[in-house]
């Protein structure tokens, strides 16, 4: 199952819940304000690295760019574009965590 997160980890428990209920190996996709979780140098960086030991973490490039943080993504987070987003959603059943 693909877990979609669109809220900042500083505002919402969406990512935390996604990680708690996701099986090991289930991918997580950050988009809209969810992309802030993938930013380097934040208080959340260690947490996202820990998450990456059990899950592929994808982030939507367009939403990073819109927020001015396209050049500050944590190493190991996989950047995808809109067509990549569509491909992922086509391949999985999805759960949205706001």
């Amino acid at each position, binding site marked *: *199952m693909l877990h979609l997160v669109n809220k900042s980890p500083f505002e919402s*428990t969406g990512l935390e*819940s996604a990680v*708690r*209920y*996701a*099986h090991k190996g*289930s991918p997580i996709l950050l988009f809209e304000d969810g992309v802030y979780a993938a930013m380097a140098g934040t208080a959340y960086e260690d947490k996202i690295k820990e998450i990456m030991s059990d899950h592929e973490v994808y982030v939507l490039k367009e939403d990073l760019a819109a927020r001015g943080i396209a050049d500050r993504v944590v190493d190991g987070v996989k950047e995808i574009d809109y067509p990549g987003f569509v491909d992922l959603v086509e391949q999985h*059943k999805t*759960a*949205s*965590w*706001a």
Partner: protein
Amino acid sequence: MGEEEKAEKLMIVFRKAPYGSIYSFEGLENVLIMGAYDQDISILFIDDGVYAIKSDMDTEATGIKNFSPTFRALEAYDIEKLYIDRESLESRGLSVDDLVIKPKVIEADEVEKLMEEQKNFFMF
């Protein structure tokens, strides 16, 4: 529904507290609507969603309708597949004895499995 039509597995997931937003109430409305169509319905309570079925609610002074008793009517709709996440309950200082209904207590790793089993599920 005709006999040739197969009931679909559908699940409503409650994950927000009841009165601070409309999610929980809308979730319950959706359960009742789906219940009218003889579908194979499951209900899952996780995160703050567990607060929706706390017993002893008294909303009178707030002017908001207490909709928790409606959960007790689910049996009349033949909705009996009720699940609740143990950690969500326990971390909020609650147990099944504090609830208006008695869902089956499950572990966090059973949540994704339940979701995968459904034709579709809806989070509120």
